[in-house]
């Protein structure tokens, strides 16, 4: 695996508290499949009432066409547990989100879909937004060395949980790795039944 986890154009979404109802509104949650959510991402912000793209919404601006890194602010993904939110973002083409903070469930859901979520201090997030004001940015993410590479030898380090890093680098099977503890699960079930028979 290459040490570059991702590279591409950065789209700056300058908002705090972007919630899951904005990322994908409820009318798209009636699907029973995992696919087909790309057009639903940020639906209410992205399209005007007549269904045409809102030219003022950052995602729709031509200079951000094809972006694969989403830069945003604090508490991104707050709200519901719908995994449709990271599915929509990923299917649109983003596989990296950089933010000051993420809501817990959204974070886990994204990691479970092999997306990289990078959390940075407010100062560094401000710095990245400033960079974006200078014109469209193409960055590379080196996951092994935990750095965002801006070109011209400039880089910004980030922290990441060792387990998540390992999972992203090796592509471990989420359920499969837990199944390796199968006999421990069985032992646990038996002792649970003995000590707390009412639990079933």
């Amino acid at each position, binding site marked *: 695996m290459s040490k570059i986890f991702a590279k591409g154009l950065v789209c700056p979404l300058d908002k705090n508290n972007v919630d899951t109802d904005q990322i994908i509104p409820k009318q798209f949650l009636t699907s029973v499949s995992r696919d087909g959510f790309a057009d639903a991402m940020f639906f209410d912000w992205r399209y005007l009432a007549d269904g045409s793209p809102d030219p003022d919404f950052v995602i729709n601006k031509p200079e951000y066409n094809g972006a694969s890194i989403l830069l945003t602010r604090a508490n991104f993904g707050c*709200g519901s547990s719908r995994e449709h939110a*990271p599915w929509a973002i990923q299917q649109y083409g983003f596989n990296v989100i950089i933010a000051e903070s993420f809501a*817990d469930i959204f974070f886990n859901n994204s990691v479970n879909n092999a997306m990289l979520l990078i959390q940075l201090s407010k100062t560094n997030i401000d710095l990245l937004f400033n960079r974006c004001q200078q014109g469209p940015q193409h960055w590379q993410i080196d996951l092994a060395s935990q750095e965002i590479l801006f070109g011209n030898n400039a880089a910004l380090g980030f922290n990441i949980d060792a387990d998540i890093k390992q999972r992203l680098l090796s592509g471990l099977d989420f359920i499969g790795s837990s199944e390796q503890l199968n006999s421990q699960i069985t032992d646990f079930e038996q002792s649970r039944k003995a000590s707390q028979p009412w639990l079933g």
Partner: protein
Amino acid sequence: MGHAFSTTSSSAKTLYQKIYASHVVGKLNPSTDLLFVDRHLIHEVTSPQAFSGLKLANRKVRRPDLTFATMDHNVSTQRRSIDAAGETSRKQLEALAANCSENNIPLLDLTHPDQGIVHVIGPEQGLTQPGMIIVCGDSHTSTHGAFGALAFGIGTSEVEHVLATQTLPQQQAKTLKVEINGELSAHVTPKDVIMAVIAELGTAGGNGYVAEFGGSAIAAMSMEGRMTLCNMSIEMGAKAGLIAPDETTFAYLKGKAHAPQAEHWDAAVQYWQSLYSDADAVFDKQVEIDAGSITPQITWGTNPEQVIAIDQSVPSPASFTDATKRDAAERALAYMGLAPGQKLTDCQVDVVFIGSCTNSRIEDLRAAASVVQGKQVAAGVRALVVPGSGIVKRQAEAEGLADIFKSAGFEWREPGCSMCLGMNDDRVAAGERCASTSNRNFEGRQGRGARTHLVSPAMAAAAAIAGKFVNIATVSSEQAAIQKETRYE
């Protein structure tokens, strides 16, 4: 399970840490444990892809006996029929029914008299018990923490993981203690308490934490009130809300369908009594709130921290020192059609929604009905009451609450999530202002362009009667007093 407590631990633990430790099946790596899940609740919206994934990988549901399903999010509240909420909803409901029957998972479908919102029926059925780990593909799973269970929302990949293994990989969360001491004023409800807590901590204040609520105000609260509190702990970003179980908890559970039966009851209670944070346990963060200082709350903006006391004025964006909060306030005011300095008590309402997993239990309906009794919904206001479950509905009908609502001009509906998120046809139209007892005031949550103000059931009922928001403290003092006396038996 029990063995974790039979030996005295050298270091003091919080309630969260006790529950966590007692569920560790094994270690996946130095920082991640595999935890056993006691109850897995599922519903139609976040489970279909998990079942397909399972099938695709040739996996089976490991413990269908610990898995329970309901239909709630996109059911019609007008008629009990899976056809009643449209074609796409019907497909999703059918998929759930098929997945449940294929895998032997008990399902409270629309023909079941106890069907209702997943977080209302879990406790009602006695599925929710102290010390358990409970998960559900729904963020308001935090509700069940009111019983001293570690309960949190998960995504669909995790639903699939739990179906396959009855476990979930977890890392220890940080611990937050929210201590609320003193007595609540007559007109102040648990909904106001949690809104005040969110105002204090912010929507991200709980990120990474499990929040335990304690203090004399919590001890005095009914199970319904505690559920309202824990329900909205997700709105401050907390992974879960927790309240140590006590006699109120045990009394609520006794005799419930899935609660421990007679031969196990005493042993269960004995175990439950060990579930509290040790006196010298250390929390990562602690806040203290004086219950007496809390007044009736209302949101003015589009996230749950944009909240004021009903007698305060809508803030000016300029009053926020943080630039992004200032921008958010500006945007929220534009979306909500409000101006700085405005009083919400001068604002007309178009829709009133009493329902959702936050406030659709019997105590909530009693509080609302006591405000409504003998009065009429104001002209031009559409008002609906959606009980949280079949059990709540029947009880409200037996107590005469349904008649009070109906004769006042409220619509009396079948149980479901309804206008909380408008997946069915219960929606707020663009530009309409809604007094809602639900938990989220996000843009578009109740319908595109809908303007949501979160309030307590009594405040919502008062708004329906007046046709505008009113300060419940100035309307009547009876209903809140009644509510304080109410205890679920």
